[in-house]
């Protein structure tokens, strides 16, 4: 792979390269930088909510802007690019091709991210990450809102280009000796999530344009005063963003499919079941979008249809969990940092999934909708599952990317603190939601239960913050001064696998 240890290169050689490992490195560094930035915003929010009344944020508008940018950053600028990062590293190697199918397109897709990130961060919009009209049309202050719309537009194009590249690389550039059925599950993860992206994201791209022209007053798609319907936007939005949940989670599951067999010293329990579950999820994932909208006044019929569609997506996820546990069964597991994250990830994946089943039961929406229950629920997915899988994979890839070993002890401390913090924050948020605290509020009345739970949540959030500071320190220190890794077997597991560093970078 990059192996800067053996042969350092000037930074611009990496920046202007189109080689897949170089683009992967750029993706990785950018996404991790945005992860720390978005996480820092979360800490500011938790500081504000530590107690009723004003703590550190002067006014509610600033608070609203911060949670909007927090969500947008972590979904679009951390999770999506970090998945692309490892896809760039591994997909060409897994399909045994010299590079991605379109290297220049690949670099273009990456270089759309920094300007989009700049638009989002310099604008600092306030209308939440889903920008519902009519608030976003008639009430959200510009130019922040318009900058957000343009930023998201660019990111949408970027992820579609990236997905096309993955699909073509896998379908057209795969080595002829390697049938699809034998392709590693991580490559399958990229194939399915890219297919979902290509089908789902254009809808939102269209909705964004309509939103923009609505804001300019040129049209009234979502503005009832001009004969439009705000609920139409929600349908368009969630038609993209419920499948988007699967776009985000499938690569993380793919990472776990890489980590579990590796450290259990045993092949995956059932390759076929993993493939089936990916494809099933990709199909059924499109049948559930409106479960986000039960409270918008949907009819009993609509609710029933979307509840059934939501429940239908659960068996696929359950098959992955089974596959992971069955892979560990009978293995000889070396608990290095990556598999600790993966095991923690499936435990939280189950909790998030169980919460999701409960959410899909339509009468419970009267209790949980837009309360902190929902915040806890989806954070268990995006943090508990996706971030845990991704961070585990960052540790797994660290020696291959840098040629050095991360600090194992601090990696484990990072995991334990993060796990404890995640449980403290997001499980408590579920309960807080049952006590009726709405999400996205800057201040809350001093109801004793709310205050107590908010204190617990804030403390948990700071524990996560400390663990992430440790992570950052570990990354920086180890990539510069860490022990040189044994590149044939950095984790001391024995055995042969395809090794990512075998990719030939022309610059080396």
């Amino acid at each position, binding site marked *: 792979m990059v192996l800067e240890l053996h042969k350092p290169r000037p930074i611009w050689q990496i920046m202007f390269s189109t080689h897949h490992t170089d683009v992967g490195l750029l993706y990785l560094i950018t996404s991790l930088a945005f992860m720390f930035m978005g996480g820092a915003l979360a800490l500011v929010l938790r500081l504000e909510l530590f107690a009723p009344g004003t703590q550190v944020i002067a006014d509610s508008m600033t608070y609203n802007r911060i949670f909007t940018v927090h969500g947008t950053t972590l979904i679009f600028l951390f999770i999506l690019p970090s998945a692309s990062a490892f896809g760039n590293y591994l997909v060409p190697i897994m399909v045994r091709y010299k590079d991605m199918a379109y290297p220049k397109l690949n670099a273009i897709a990456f270089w759309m991210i920094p300007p989009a990130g700049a638009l989002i961060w310099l604008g600092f919009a306030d209308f939440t990450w889903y920008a519902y009209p009519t608030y976003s049309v008639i009430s959200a202050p510009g130019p922040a809102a318009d900058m957000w719309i343009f930023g998201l537009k660019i990111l949408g194009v970027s992820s579609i280009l990236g997905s096309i590249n993955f699909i073509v690389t896998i379908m057209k550039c795969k080595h002829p000796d390697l049938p699809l059925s034998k392709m590693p599950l991580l490559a399958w993860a990229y194939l399915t999530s890219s297919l979902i992206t290509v089908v789902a994201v254009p809808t939102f791209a269209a909705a964004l344009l309509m939103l923009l022209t609505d804001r300019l007053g040129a049209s009234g798609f979502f503005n009832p005063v001009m004969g439009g319907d705000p609920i139409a936007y929600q349908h368009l939005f969630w038609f993209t963003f419920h499948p988007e949940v699967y776009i985000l989670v499938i690569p993380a599951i793919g990472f776990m499919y890489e980590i579990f*067999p590796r450290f*259990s*010293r*045993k*092949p995956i329990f059932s390759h076929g079941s993993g493939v089936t579950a990916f494809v099933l999820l990709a199909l059924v994932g499109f049948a559930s979008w409106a479960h986000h909208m039960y409270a918008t006044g949907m009819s*009993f*019929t609509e609710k*029933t*249809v979307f509840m059934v569609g939501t429940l239908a997506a659960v068996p696929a996820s359950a098959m992955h*969990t089974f596959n992971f*546990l069955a892979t*560990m*069964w*009978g*293995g*000889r*597991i*070396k*608990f290095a940092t990556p598999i600790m994250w993966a*095991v923690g990830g*499936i*435990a939280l994946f*189950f*909790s998030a999934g*169980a*919460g999701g*089943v*409960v959410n899909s*039961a339509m*009468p*419970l929406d*009267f*209790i949980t909708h837009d309360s902190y229950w929902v915040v806890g629920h989806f954070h268990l997915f995006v943090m508990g599952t996706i971030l845990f899988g991704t961070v585990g994979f960052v540790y797994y890839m660290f020696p291959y990317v840098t040629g050095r070993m991360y600090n194992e002890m601090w990696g484990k401390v990072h995991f334990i603190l993060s796990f404890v913090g995640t449980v403290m924050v997001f499980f408590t948020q579920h309960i807080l939601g049952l006590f009726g605290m709405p999400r996205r509020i800057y201040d809350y009345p001093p109801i004793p239960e709310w205050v107590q739970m908010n204190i617990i949540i804030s403390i948990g959030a700071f524990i996560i913050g400390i663990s992430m500071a440790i992570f950052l320190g570990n990354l920086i220190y180890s990539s510069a001064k860490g022990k040189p890794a044994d590149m044939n077997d950095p984790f001391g597991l*024995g*055995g*042969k*696998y395809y090794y990512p560093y075998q990719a030939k970078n022309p610059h080396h």
Partner: protein
Amino acid sequence: MKAIIGLGMVLGLLMILPAIQYALAAGDEPGEYLDRRVEIWGLFYRLMIVAFTVGTVVSGMIVWLVLRFRESNPKAKPTEYEEAGTW
């Protein structure tokens, strides 16, 4: 055989269609006074019983797997794939 399958499918459809019709069209007739708190929270607690039961099984399974198949467990033995060195 084909005829039996065909007949089964037709009969199955005849069963399923009215059920779907009923399931989707419910909620039209006027109802009686009831305490929605009792109904909804009751549903919530029933589902929590299911969720926590399954959760206990799953997390118990994970903990057991982690303890039993860890490298440092006295009973740990090399997997059959380790000798060949490929997995």
